[in-house]
């Protein structure tokens, strides 16, 4: 049994007759009561996404899943294809399972596949990843209209906000959780 104090993104739980993956977890405190954890969970069979609020400290049943290293290969819009790093077997997952993570997938990138009952059910990206900036406008000193940040397109095609000093061709570190800029990468 896992405790909900551990409830965090990436944890799989048995709940309401199914296996669910926690895709988001946030602290809530009603002020006049104890602490709760509000989680967005996805059913690993039906892909249904619901929100549920657990009492902090509540015991939940952790599902048995295994994490295996894999490599992203390509997608055809509706299916995303990967290869297991140990067995070299290829597998595919539907686009709605990949969700928002698809903006950070580039060919050959390494991530984890989460397996339930021996089959890959979803992927997990490293918390921080490095990307090359492909296009961005030059930063202008004292430009108040842009408010100290600007848009930059990274090699996956995703658009992120970066500080003004970032130039085209720079490598930058991005938080894959919320897509925010962390720092320049070396």
């Amino acid at each position: 049994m896992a405790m909900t104090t551990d409830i965090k993104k990436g944890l799989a739980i048995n709940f309401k007759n199914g296996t669910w993956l926690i895709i988001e977890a946030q602290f809530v405190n009603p002020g006049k009561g104890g602490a709760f954890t509000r989680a967005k969970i996805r059913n690993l069979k039906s892909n249904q996404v619901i929100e549920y609020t657990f009492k902090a400290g509540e015991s939940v049943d952790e599902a048995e899943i295994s994490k295996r290293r894999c490599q992203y290969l390509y997608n055809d819009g509706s299916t995303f294809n990967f290869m297991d790093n140990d067995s070299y077997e290829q597998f595919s997952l539907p686009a709605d399972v990949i969700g928002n993570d698809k903006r950070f997938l580039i060919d050959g990138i390494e991530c984890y596949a989460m397996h339930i009952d021996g089959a890959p059910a979803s992927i997990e990206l490293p918390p921080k990843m490095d990307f090359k900036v492909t296009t961005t406008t030059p930063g202008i000193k004292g430009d108040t209209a842009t408010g100290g940040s600007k848009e930059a397109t990274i090699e996956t095609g995703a658009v992120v906000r970066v500080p003004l000093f970032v130039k085209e061709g720079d490598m930058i570190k991005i938080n894959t959780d919320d897509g925010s800029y962390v720092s320049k990468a070396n």
Partner: protein
Amino acid sequence: MIYDKKTAIERNKLTKSLRIFFEKEKFLEVETPIMVRIPGMEPHLNVFETNLIVGNKKTKLFLNHSPELQMKKLLGANFRNIFTLTKTFRNGEIGGNFHNPEFTMLEWYRIKANYKDLMKDCENLIKTLAKTPQITYQNHKIDLKTPWEKFSCEELFQKYCKISLDQNRTFKQLKNTAKKQNLDTNFCKDWDDIFFKIFLNEIEPHLGKKKPTFVYDYPSTQAALAKKSSKNPFFAERFELYIGGVEIANAFSELTDAKEQKTRLIEEQKIRKKLKKTIFDIDGEFLASLESIQHKCAGIALGIDRLFMILMDKKNIDETLLFPLKKILN
């Protein structure tokens, strides 16, 4: 690190119009301390602690989690309508979209008023700040035309869960009734736990989506500083304001009966002990001040970062702050 100047400018404008609003309403702005010797007793809040060291003498101090006790001391000293815009601190409250352990709180107190009058203040203030009759928050169009929606806790539990709180006043009753309605009460240790688990899962997600919503008349157990309802003392004259599913403000008709207040503080002190939280003294000066408050009055605490987050249509409270703690910890 990104320091978003555009947001900082927008925030500064909102703060300025807020001060103009209260000036027009003839409120006096007062400054309340960040460090205090005795913070409010709220059983579930965790505080930041520090020490004042003078020579060999150490005095334990706390970062204030709410300026409420100080504001009421001023009311007892014959201050009239007052407001404060101050930093408050709650330990452990980090993560998700709506918390930063250090946040800006707006509190205002109106004399010769009750909690219903503060609902009107909220409507007027937020309409003034928004400048438009409709706002968009995370793709929800929210109509600010007044009057806003008002539901009592009893009505909401009936509407969404077919449960009467009033007729299920004990832990056992509420647990059984919830079970009959197929509602999860797992890990709930007391009546309030069940209340919140149901409220957070079944009710809160619906609130304030089309119009801002006032939820009023909370169970008395969740309103230690509020006056009990004269119609039904099981409930207290307290409301919370929700906009776009987010809790923005918490208000009371203030309890000014010092004897009853003392009893409630002692009870809350016991709960803190049971929950193994830092125990605070009972603030004697606060109790004495209550006795000299001459008029009935009402007070409200409004989370400024959350309100600005909604008015600026930002998903995360951190986007309204130049120095959110999460970024520093990263």
